[in-house]
């Protein structure tokens, strides 16, 4: 028997994750993403390869989505746009200003789901790891809608649903949320994203509509939630289990949207064959996120991402130390520190880091946190305690790791207060809002430090700042003298090649398939895996099939004697005879043990007349042979 892996997406490329694995007769689709970079039919995986007839229900057992989402609250301070920041890259969708800038990796993993289920017609089960489940309907502000709808947000609080009602006059006239029920996140955000995406494609680009809002709702009904380390018996033979992948972030943009994104590794077992599909994962723990955790399994196949297949990251500690030193130096010289961040996620991590440091060093310089989301972060991490690092788990029962002792609430007066301070201001790339305002004020001073945590998109002030120009031109009328110091901190939630190797080494699967990476990197990683661990490794391109042999256990009957022997240790002791001992010299006597272990492995498999296999012990073989002889 063999495990056949058909790579429909993310083969030798990044994006559009979609792998169909045929394992012992069960076909599982892992992820169902779409490619964000192309707009033609190549955007979706070529589903016809699964079943030329389009009968997906029989062709596929289930779909597993490794990435998950959760949505907390929709803040409607700015009505006109919605930006979603997701792990790799930045903006999913900006309603008015940035139409068309859609590059989201998580759509990599589930973008094509609705298309596949509703348009192509798959009716089987869909599994997602789930944190919180909510259904959100995003209503397009169009002429067909009435403006006086009422917005209701339900937040589960220990089983009770709190209902906040907000009247429509508090809302914008263009966007209304009808319901946001908090339970399961994946389902929460997925339709939202999909719906947005659909609109962008259809309405702005004038493309043919491939699915509509009803389709999304229908699709979401099919989704079944999976908890971490929960084993799910899909059917008689197929069993799946999700493991924590350490890839998990909280994001917020302009206090507009706050959500949790995370990923899981999935273990699938059919009969005797076992495999793991990783999705994105991270092997290095963080201050607020733990490293991926998985059991040692007997795997036939491991399908792993390889985004950073050739990178090896240095210790994060060194970067943190540099960062802290830079900040400490700045504040002790009386300077101000500006850290442009998103309100959550990376900011939380930096906050933990600095709060610890302040505490240890007894620093009294105030730290301000502009985005008033600390409270919400607490709510989050409380709900998601399983997804956080050991540090947060440790401190959780006594005091919340996010109840920062040294972090104060930001007030506007802070900006003009003399003396040192540290300010976390959003947005992250100094593209506008408070961080730009603060930047304008503080940048001309030499003792100011701007610490940029993370990547900055081209076109933002943050990006320009990295090249340390003497002047930044915001618009023809506004020029800022930049005399401040700039410190850059790089973090990434993806694992590096060392992490991939470590995972493979720990799991020691029989075969490895690399997906979700660039071809040259995959090739070099493949060589490395092959040479260092001697594990056969493959990196199929899209629409290629790789077939690897799988473990198959043959069923055989075991004799009673054999069973009995199995329960005992399978060795016996051979005692050296006294004659043997006497020959040996005295020194030898001390060395050679009187008893020697003789392995008793003799097991015979015999095929009887009815062509059934039978396992017997060697003691029995003679007896059986004797019987045969007499029969003959």
């Amino acid at each position, binding site marked *: 028997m063999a495990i056949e892996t058909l790579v429909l997406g993310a083969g030798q490329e990044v994006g559009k994750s979609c792998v169909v694995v045929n394992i012992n007769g069960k076909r599982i689709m892992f992820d169902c993403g779409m490619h964000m970079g192309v707009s033609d039919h190549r955007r979706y995986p070529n589903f016809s390869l699964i079943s030329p007839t389009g009968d997906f229900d029989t062709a596929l057992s289930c779909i597993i989505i490794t990435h998950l989402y959760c949505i907390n609250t929709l803040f409607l301070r700015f009505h006109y746009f919605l930006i979603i920041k997701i792990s790799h890259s930045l903006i999913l969708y900006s309603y008015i200003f940035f139409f068309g800038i859609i590059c989201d990796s998580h759509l990599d993993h589930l973008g094509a789901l609705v298309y596949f289920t509703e348009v192509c017609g798959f009716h089987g089960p869909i599994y997602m790891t789930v944190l919180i489940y909510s259904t959100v309907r995003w209503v397009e502000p169009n002429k067909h809608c009435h403006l006086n709808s009422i917005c209701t947000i339900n937040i589960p609080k220990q089983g009770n649903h709190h209902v906040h009602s907000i009247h429509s006059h508090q809302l914008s006239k263009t966007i209304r949320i009808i319901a946001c029920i908090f339970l399961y996140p994946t389902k929460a955000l997925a339709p939202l994203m999909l719906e947005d995406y659909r609109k962008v494609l259809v309405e702005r680009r004038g493309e043919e509509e491939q699915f509509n809002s009803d389709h999304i709702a229908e699709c979401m009904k099919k989704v079944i939630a999976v908890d971490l380390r929960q084993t799910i018996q899909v059917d008689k033979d197929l069993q799946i289990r999700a493991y924590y992948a350490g890839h998990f972030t909280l994001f917020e943009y302009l206090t507009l949207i706050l959500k949790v994104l995370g990923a899981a590794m999935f273990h699938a077992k059919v009969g005797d064959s076992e495999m793991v599909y990783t999705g994105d994962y991270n092997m290095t*723990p963080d201050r607020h996120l733990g490293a991926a955790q998985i059991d040692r399994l007997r795997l036939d196949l491991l399908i792993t991402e390889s985004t950073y297949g050739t990178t*090896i990251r240095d210790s*994060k500690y060194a970067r943190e130390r540099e960062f802290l030193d830079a900040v*400490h130096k700045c504040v002790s010289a009386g300077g101000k520190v500006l850290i442009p961040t998103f309100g959550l996620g990376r900011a939380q991590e930096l906050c933990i880091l600095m709060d610890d440091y302040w505490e*240890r*060093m007894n620093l009294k310089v105030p730290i301000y946190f502009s985005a008033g989301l600390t409270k919400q972060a607490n709510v989050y991490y409380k709900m998601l305690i399983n997804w956080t690092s050991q540090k947060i788990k440790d401190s959780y029962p006594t005091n919340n790791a996010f109840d920062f002792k040294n972090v104060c609430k930001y007030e506007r007066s802070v900006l003009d207060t003399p003396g040192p301070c540290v300010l976390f201001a959003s947005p992250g790339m100094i593209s506008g809002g408070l961080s730009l305002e603060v930047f304008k004020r503080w940048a001309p001073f030499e003792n100011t430090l701007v610490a940029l945590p993370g990547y900055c998109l081209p076109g933002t002030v943050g990006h320009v700042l990295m090249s340390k120009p003497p002047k930044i031109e915001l618009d023809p009328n506004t020029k800022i003298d930049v005399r401040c110091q700039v410190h850059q901190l790089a973090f990434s939630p993806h694992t590096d090649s060392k992490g991939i190797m470590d995972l493979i080494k720990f799991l020691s699967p029989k075969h490895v398939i690399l997906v979700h990476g660039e071809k040259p990197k995959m090739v070099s990683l493949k060589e490395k895996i092959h040479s260092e661990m001697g594990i056969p490794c493959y990196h199929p391109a899209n629409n290629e099939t790789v077939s690897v042999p799988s473990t198959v256990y043959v069923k055989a009957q075991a004799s009673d004697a054999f069973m009995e022997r199995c329960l005992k240790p399978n060795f016996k002791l051979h005692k050296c005879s006294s004659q043997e001992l006497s020959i040996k010299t005295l020194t030898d006597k001390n060395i050679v*043990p009187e008893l*020697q272990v003789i392995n008793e492995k003799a097991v015979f498999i015999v095929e009887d007349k009815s062509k059934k296999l039978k396992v017997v012990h060697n003691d029995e073989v003679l007896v059986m042979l004797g019987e045969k002889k007499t029969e003959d």
Partner: protein
Amino acid sequence: MGVLSAIQPFELHHHHTASTTSPLKGDYYQYLAKFKCGDERKEAADQSMKTYQNNTPESIRLISMQTFTSMMNEILNPSTPKSTVSSIFKTLIHSLLHSPESHHSQILKLITDLSSHHPSLAQLALDSLQSMLPQLTDPPSQLTIEYLDALVNISERPVEVDDSLFTSICLAASFPVRLWMVRNSGCRVMVRPKLLYPVLMGMTKEPYPCVREESLEALVRLGECAVFEEVSLVKGCYERGVQLLSDNEDCVRISAVRVVALWGLMLASFNVDMKTYWSNEVFAMLCSVVRDMNMKVRVEVFNGLGKMEIVSKELLMQSLSKRVLVLDQSPTEQFVLLASNVAGALVHGVEDEFFEVRKSVCQSLRALTVLSVEFAHAALNLLMDVLNDYKVEVRFQALETMHHMAINHCLELQENYMHKFLDVLEDNSSEVRFSARKIVRLMKLRNHLLFKSTMDVLLKNLDSYPQDEADIFSVLSHLGRNHKQFVDLIANEIADEVTASFEGNREFNSARMAALLVLSISAPFLNADVGPIPPVIFSFAATFLSRICCAFSDVMNRDTLLEYLIQKSSSMVQPEVNISNGEGQNPLAKDDVQNVAGNEMIHSEITINNGEGQLPLSKYNVQNVALEMKPPNDVGQHKQPVHDSVVLTYINYILVKLPNIWPKVQSYSANEVLCSLRHWKEELTSLTFDSSAPADASAFALLYLKIIKLVVEVWDHLVRKTEVVSGTVELEDKLEKLDRRAKELMNRFVGFSAEEEISVLELILLTYTLRLCRAEICSRNFIFKRMTIIYLRTESFLKLRSDVASGFVAELGNLIRESSNGGASCSSLAFDNCLKLFSPKRLMIPEGIRHRRAELSIPNNCPDYPLPFAPGLTASIPCDITIHNISSNCRAWVRMCINDGFTQHVYLDLQSFEVSGEVRKISYAVPYYRTPEVDSFNLKVCIGLESLFENVTPVQAHGGPKCELVLLCEEKIVYLSRVL
């Protein structure tokens, strides 16, 4: 009981025919035993035991659970008679042979308990169990294990099991039986290593994970105690461990890591030539599992790494880098093979999510950094990162590792690390700070700037963590000793700062001053060259003696330190210091002149190196000086001349300081002054004396200081006129106290020289003036009268010495002369003006000063053992009285007060005392006449001296003292109770 005896015949009769009665009868007696007591109970218990013993095998089956319980009670009860216990024991052994197997575990449990409570029976139990064992071994079953378990529990030493039994149990079909054997082999069950080893090796292949785990653990135990001479055995075990490193079960992997670490090291130590090779192999093998998903495995790995004895440098360096290193020279074959396994192992450990792992890494680095200097430098980089850890435990371990490195001379803190390291000194966990300071003690700093910043951080530390003061001083003293050249550079700065503060421009007692002094006096510690440190620094340091002496506790004790300071300060007379401070400002000026002769010797031969801190040579020198200084009239001083002269000098120091602080009092900074006064007082009270002379001097100084302190307090109230209502009572109280103390000063000391007496009198005049500023009209005249007497006395003294009165005394004299009618006419304002003129005179301790004091003890009296009395009759109170320095023309009294205020005085005839020198002793039964009509009462007894000094207010007591009494000792309470 009556009921019991009544039913007995009936019961026995009722049952005696049936064959099954015996156990029931036994139960019955057991039942009886519960109700009876004493001998009867014992009898009943014995009876019941006998009945049990006589039972037939069939009937024993009927021993009920209840019987077991009652036996248990008997065993646990310490008062159970021995005979009962032994009969229970016999019954138990007997029933083991005859009862069904289902009962055996119960019975064995009882036997075990019995043996532990009655050790005398333990050997017997062991023997009988051992004799039963062979019957049970074929085939070994759960029961065999229960027997063995009982054996092991009873025996204090490990039980030896013969080979065939051991192998048959290990090969037994039942898995719990095997598990028990493996778990206990090598610790509680002794098996020959030669037999144990192959069996355990076989067991590591068991299908049951827990047996695999236990067999690996047993191999660890075996490896720890047994010695193997055959390489192949050790290698075999090591390789088995390596195989099991990839076991599917976490618990097995944990044990496998331990086996690999232990047996791998054994393997390496077999052959000296191959040692590095095998050590490298083991190191790489452990590193390869460093990314295990189980936290405990990772902890175990680092524990194992911490035991490495030798690892090649390349591999060590590789463990610090996640990338495979490119070496300068062509790498060895082994390195190429192992590099990828080892890569970044320690870095991963440091980055670990679990603090247990991070802690373990830091500990393992302790052993590893010793192996290579280059590695130690690189690992330091990692450790510096760990100092940022959020867990105190981890930071602490990292620092301990650095300390360990420092001890092994492989710690080199570069400048860029220093910055980070100094941050740690300010950590908010005291544990971490102490650990960091331990490292500072050992540090050799490269340049002056680093030294300065370290010093600054430590001084800053003093402000933020005052509780660490002692430790910080000690660190500073080490720092100074290690970096004399840098201290010399900043010596002048320090001297300026310290001198300035001592002259009253800044606070006197700040920890900062003490710290600076510690630093500067420690610099010339180990070498005689004082360098640019001015001697005055040493004399300043002496005032902080008790505060700073702990900083030098590793090399000298307090007294030697004082000696050292005094020698250093006097060893070089710097004229400019004397001039700048003015004549008499330097307290040692007088000594210096006298010391000149001995100077050279002291200076050149001072050696301070032994822990006891004795200075044999200098002692001799100082002794000479002391002999010159003091007239040899005091016996006590001959015994301990060095010490006493030192103490006297020291006391003089403090007294000399007093005039310096007066300007501060006038400038209303009383708090600061009080603070330093309190400090001096503490210094004084902490002094120890070997003879009476310095004790007297110190008592005088103490009292003097107390008076000054009160004066300052009162002054603050009066002169600033800021009293609030609540302060008024307090002020009155203080004035009273001042008055009392002033009288004490006059009466309790003798042997003033004229000059000193004037100073003292002046002080007393001051106290009266203060009172007059304040006093009500009614008491005014009286105080004024007293003041006049003192004034006249002062004046006569002045005339005698033809001295000019100070401004204060002169003004006061005018005031007294002007007021004809007893001072009532003088306004407070006039006295105020006088006060402004006052400034304290410099006072040296008078050489011949004697403290008049008394010791009173009432033997055998305490609240529990009161003295007897009969109401109305005279009670006698036995007193042991010792009085010091009181001449026989004084009038001494015993004063006895009862609670209702009635006071009785008894005259002490000083002639009747037993005289030895200035000390007089007597045992005297003091009569008390007015015993009240109560069951018991308390007397307050004390000894007083009639004050002849100012005879203003004759006390009109009948037969009592004519003048006021000055108390010479604390009041003692005497307990009396009525004779029944």
